[in-house]
């Protein structure tokens, strides 16, 4: 029930604690963290720049989150997506889904990631060791991943 688009890093423990503090109705917390890999298509990546569409990003993430809350019995959700220049190993995105039981938490977290990947207006540009900057191509698999959830 909370979405952030930020350049700063995030802390997993702190974010989970913020969602669960003082609550005893949560039994299962699933987190997904996406990180920058140091290689793409056999090339060494030195940095990754994330561009986004301010305003639309926040509203699309909120829409994705509302969709998950409508589909699963969730006690709490959280989405954080970073933008700007990142290095290999850096965090890019965090999704948290908390529920009474594990199946809803797992499914909702996977759903949030699939939807976010197909709808949130972010674009990645990778800079290789050779100094070349390339926009990352959308993966066909990401469209297929979203289809398994049916009509959104």
């Amino acid at each position, binding site marked *: 029930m909370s979405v952030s688009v930020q350049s700063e890093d995030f802390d997993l423990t702190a974010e989970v604690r913020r969602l669960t503090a003082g609550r005893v109705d949560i039994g299962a917390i699933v987190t997904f963290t*996406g990180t920058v890999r140091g290689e793409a298509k056999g090339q060494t990546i030195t940095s990754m720049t*994330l*561009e*986004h*569409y301010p*305003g*639309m990003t926040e*509203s*699309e993430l909120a829409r994705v989150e509302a969709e998950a809350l409508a589909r699963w019995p969730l006690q709490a959700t959280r989405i954080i*997506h970073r933008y700007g220049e990142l290095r290999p190993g850096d965090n*890019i*995105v965090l999704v948290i889904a908390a529920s009474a039981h594990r199946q809803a938490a797992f499914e909702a977290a996977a759903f949030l*990631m699939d939807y*976010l*990947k*197909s*709808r*949130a*207006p*972010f*674009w*990645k*540009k990778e800079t290789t060791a050779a100094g070349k900057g390339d*926009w*990352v*191509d*959308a*993966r066909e698999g*990401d469209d297929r991943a979203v289809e398994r959830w049916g009509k959104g």
Partner: protein
Amino acid sequence: MTINLLYFAWVREKIGKSTETVDLPSSVRTIADLVQWLVARGPEYADAFARPEVVRAAIDRAHVKTSAEIGAAREIAFFPPVTGG
């Protein structure tokens, strides 16, 4: 009609600007019309929309298809398929 256009990622790089305000003739009714109208403005637009099927659009910050009517839109954005997450 005056409207703000926004460009992102390689669409922005090819067009050479991230935003501009344009006056649209009344003949431009849909996103597809707008793409055609932009392409006629110069080679940088023709380059950005060379493969129109890989360019996505949003009207007032909501994803739309190219058949969407522009209507009373204040802001239209063009960008490649998203690659966040």
